[in-house]
């Protein structure tokens, strides 16, 4: 019996156990119910609302919600561009890191505003502490914005929903103050006590036993690591992300960080059940997500534990599994678990080199991002899942002989149009991006020189992974891709921008439109959406619509590589 497997099982089980009460708590926060936290947060929020001039009780319809979301994002976008391009002379820069170029600033800003955290720079040498702190602020607000949008959809799904769907700023502020902030403080403290630095001092210096002078980067890392995991941001303080010994010092911190990755995405599902008072429905959603997650996880762990065939042919034993690009303190099972959780949840932090995963594991990591709704990012994961539910409800509603309705509201042409566009968008962005870069690589070698570390199928996977990661707002890199060039910065920036906001706009619009419709009470002829049968239907829609669209592309990348290794 492998001792690495129980570690994975414990991490998953403990997360679900924590997510259950957390989900109830999040539900209460959005519903405005009394919680233990009122005494602490009510005064703080009152100050915030007063300064910002927000009336948290002013109800908004879905259009006003979207307007609020886009406005605040646009303001942050300008602010971040300014800081990143001028941080060379701005304060809090002990290591004298320079300002960054416009295209990299664009990419970085988009990437943090969109909760992607695709880092085409290296944290310790590329950004000042002020820059890091601005980025950390975005890790809160982009996560909070995603959760607030999700809360709007939850509100709209309620039985008695009307066009009045709560106040966006209220949801947004409370997501940050009452959910993200307290959890981040707890996680940051755990990390701090286990060795992650938290300081504004510049590089530490010591002389090694060999007599070399070694500079060790440090900074306010513990705080950023906590929110990067909890907010499914993934942007690390250091370039090597959570594989870096100061960012993720031990197996224990690895467990804490890994659980933080999936904690809120799972808790949001239970929050849904609490808000709708339909816990069966929440369990159905959780069941489908878990089924998909396990479907990706199990073969990945199996592949990584089995080791690399290319190394095996050389006659080298691999008792620890495929260890290339992995940290010895985590091992292959925990690294596989991390790889699948981080890609499924649009987190994107890494504790191992995804470029070095065995081919099929690399494919499963990509599939996690291509589907992007097996738990998914905080808030936005459910929004993506919502689109698949709408499509599944439509088809299965017909199969039971009724015009399709979801939670008592009829799905008609307008909703279908929006759902179709959103379902289309993800494959379009990934495939079109990869097609563009493949075309350039094949027809314009001078322009694309230095892009790929590996030729052939693996090189193709690197490009496919980069766009998949951008479009899924994941932010992890396959690496091995020379990606800090204007082409990659700008094209990935556009992909991130579109794939962040359209998939939020779509579900909010659908939910808002549905909430305006007449509520039809359930009868024996109504399709029940909280059953296992319907869950299988949703899973089938996800598999056929989302996963299979990528089948030809994947066969040229990881699948070809896998068969080629035989």
């Amino acid at each position, binding site marked *: 019996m492998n001792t690495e497997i129980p570690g994975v099982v414990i991490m998953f089980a403990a997360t679900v156990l924590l997510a259950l009460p957390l989900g109830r708590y999040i539900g209460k926060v959005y519903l405005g119910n009394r919680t233990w936290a009122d005494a602490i947060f009510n005064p703080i929020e009152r100050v915030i609302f007063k300064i910002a001039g927000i009336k948290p009780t002013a109800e908004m319809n879905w259009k006003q919600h979207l307007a609020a979301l886009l406005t605040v994002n646009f303001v942050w976008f300008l602010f971040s561009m300014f800081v990143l391009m001028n941080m060379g002379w701005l304060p809090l820069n002990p290591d004298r890191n320079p300002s960054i170029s416009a295209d990299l600033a664009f990419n970085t800003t988009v990437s943090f505003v969109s909760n992607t955290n695709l880092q085409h720079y290296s944290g310790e040498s590329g950004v000042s502490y002020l820059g890091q702190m601005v980025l950390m602020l975005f890790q809160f607000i982009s996560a909070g914005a995603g959760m607030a949008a999700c809360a709007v959809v939850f509100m709209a799904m309620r039985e008695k929903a009307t066009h009045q769907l709560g106040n966006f700023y209220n949801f947004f502020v409370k997501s940050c103050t009452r959910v993200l902030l307290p959890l981040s403080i707890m996680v940051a403290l755990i990390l701090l006590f286990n060795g992650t630095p938290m300081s504004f001092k510049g590089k530490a210096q010591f002389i090694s036993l060999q007599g070399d002078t070694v500079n060790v980067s440090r900074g306010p890392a513990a705080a950023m690591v906590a929110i990067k995991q909890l907010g499914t941001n993934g942007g690390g303080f250091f370039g090597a992300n959570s594989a870096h010994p100061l960012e993720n010092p031990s197996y224990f911190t690895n467990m804490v960080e890994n659980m933080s990755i999936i904690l809120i995405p799972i808790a949001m599902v239970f929050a849904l059940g609490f808000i709708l008072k339909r816990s069966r429905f929440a369990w159905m959603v959780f069941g489908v997500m878990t089924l998909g997650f396990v479907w990706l996880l199990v073969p990945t762990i199996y592949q990584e534990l089995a080791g690399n065939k290319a190394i095996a042919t050389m006659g080298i034993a691999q008792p620890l599994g495929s260890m290339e690009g992995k940290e010895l303190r985590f091992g292959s099972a925990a690294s596989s678990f991390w790889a699948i959780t981080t890609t499924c949840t649009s987190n994107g932090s890494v504790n191992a080199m995804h470029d070095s995963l065995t081919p099929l594991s690399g494919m499963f990591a990509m599939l996690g991002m291509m589907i992007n709704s097996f738990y998914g990012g905080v808030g936005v994961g459910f929004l993506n899942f919502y689109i698949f539910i709408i499509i599944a409800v439509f088809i299965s509603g017909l199969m039971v002989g009724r015009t399709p309705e979801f939670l008592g509201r009829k799905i008609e042409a307008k909703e*279908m149009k929006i759902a179709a566009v959103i379902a289309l968008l993800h494959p379009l962005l990934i495939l079109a991006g990869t097609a563009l870069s493949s075309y350039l690589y094949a027809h314009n070698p001078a322009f694309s020189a230095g892009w790929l570390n590996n030729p052939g199928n693996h090189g193709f996977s690197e490009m496919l992974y980069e766009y998949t990661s951008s479009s899924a707002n994941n932010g992890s890199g396959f690496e091995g891709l020379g990606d800090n060039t204007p082409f990659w910065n700008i094209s990935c920036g556009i992909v991130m921008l579109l794939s962040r906001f359209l998939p939020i706009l779509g579900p909010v619009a659908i939910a808002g439109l549905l909430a305006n419709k007449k509520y039809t009470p359930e009868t024996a002829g109504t399709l029940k959406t909280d059953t296992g049968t319907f869950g299988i239907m949703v899973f089938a829609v996800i598999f056929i619509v989302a996963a299979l669209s990528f089948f030809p592309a994947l066969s040229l990348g990881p699948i070809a590589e896998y068969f080629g290794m035989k």
Partner: protein
Amino acid sequence: MSNHKQNKVFDSSIFRTAIKQSFIKLSPRTTFRNPVMFTVWIGTLIMMAVCVWIAAGEAAQGSLAYNIIVTVVLFLTLLFANFAEAVAEARGKAQADSLRKTREETPAKWIQAVGEVFVDEIKTVPSSQLKKGDVFLCEPADVIPMDGEIIQGLATIDESAITGESAPVIREAGGDKSSVTGGTKVLSGRIKVRVTTKPGESFLDKMIALVEGASRQKTPNEIALTILLASFTLVFIIVCVTLKPFADYANTPITVAAFISLFVCLIPTTIGGLLSAIGIAGMDRALRANVITKSGKAVETAGDLDTLLLDKTGTITIGNRKATHFHLVQGVSKEAFIKAAVLSSFGDETPEGKSIIELGGINPLSYQAVNPHFIQFNAETRCSGIDFESTRIRKGAADAIRNIVEKSGHRFPAEADAYVKQIAENGGTPLVVSENGKVSGVIELQDIIKPGIQERFDRLRRMGVKTVMVTGDNPLTAKYIAQKAGVDDFIAEAKPEDKMNYIRTEQQSGKLVAMMGDGTNDAPALAQADVGVAMNSGTQAAKEAGNMVDLDNDPTKLIEIVEIGKQLLMTRGTLTTFSIANDVAKYFAIVPALFIASLPSLRGMNIMRLHSPESAILSAVIFNAIIIPLLIPLALKGVAYKPIGASALLRLNLLIYGLGGILVPFIGIKLIDLVISTWF
């Protein structure tokens, strides 16, 4: 139903028309209405160009024969889809034509209004010359030339040409049974009829236009499904277009034929090709059940109904009440009471009256009443009876008789009171009989509930449909019958506005309501209901207000209409699922075939062990094409509805059409590959 006109799915004349139509429908304007098939149409054109290109000397696109076969198969895919639509249209039209044939060019006795003083002149003209508002005359043995409303007279009419029901019906001026239908035959009586529709605008004409496609509009659900299918098509356009640069990167040349084949196989051609046929077949099935629908949407809505309003009489109970029991009052002999009861009903022509004589079992003539004087029922006295010699027998409602009894100085016995109460509680109607001012007994009339109606309501309940009985009875009686028949709710002592109010309340809580009606006073409720079915015998106002007309005048038809609606939606849903599930196998057939030449290692993905890349691609497109005609019978007949609850139904259909949709193409493609591997 006894009168369903069955014809086979493929009648030879229908077959010929359909083949002709499937070529006519290739015109781009027609094809453009269906985005899925339109892309196949474009694919076919591209393949034709490729064939020409190869013939002109291009060598890298595979053999000419192979390319021609792909082109032909794509062309067949288009033809099959058109054929499905054409067959559905032709069948619907044939059905409608057979109804229409009966009324074409019948001679009409047109009444030319000359003036008030002179007698109107009667001219025989062909029916096609009658205009709306004209008046014509019908006498025994005449065929009624046009739909219209009787303005004078009464007639018995044989409607078997339309309904298949041989028993004649009575139609008369005024009231709710004043409508006559063209093509039916007058058996007795003389009626003047005013034409109510313009030529070519009768319901039947509208229905034919609906089926023929000229005025056929996509229903909201069809539009939403088309959007979904179009988006699937778009996804696969993206998949196929981006494959070209991917292949460039991998140095894998892919032929145009392979690209187009992959694309056509992945897009949902099966449901795309059958979608309009399914819709037409739904209306056609309604027509077969002798229901004329005014729009395709009405059929769709029928599948969603939550509440049915059903009239008690004729739907739940057999026509009229029957006498079932005589209750004696103390001091009156059984013979004396039966005599009084039978004699009181002597002049009573109503079915209730006749049933009393039947129950008494004695011919009233045998009592030899001398110089009888019959008292007819009227609304004021609310009793009827007979006077002869010094005997005055009265029969009527309890309070009416109580009045008579107490006026003549007698007491209304408590015993009779008890009977009256007991009968009412059991859902019966008590009739009290008095002889010379003294109560002699109580007759019990009972409603006879139609056999098998409980099962039908049970079936409806399992479908999630609530049934509501509408009756003029008092609440006590209504409740009893409602319980016995198994309806969920009832409206007692119903006035027309009660129906209207009930429909409104149900609709406000988000439910879809259907009702059936015939009278002018039903018209507002018929219009308000989501599905209003007017009886063909009903008034013109009722027929205009509803969105369906039932030619059989059969109140239980609503139940069938609900099932037709559900079948229509289910057929769409299951075939969509089947079509999309097919993609799994098609991916596994084509994708390895695309890359195997340059990446031999991908052989491992060829899990079906198909013979060669060419045979794999051909097998997939051939399977994709022939599945359409194979499913035409299912599209036309509809997927059977089983009232087993939504979740169980979903499980069943998912198993058959989802899992089946995954497995069938694996088998089909492999079999086709085995056959064609000799050549490719």
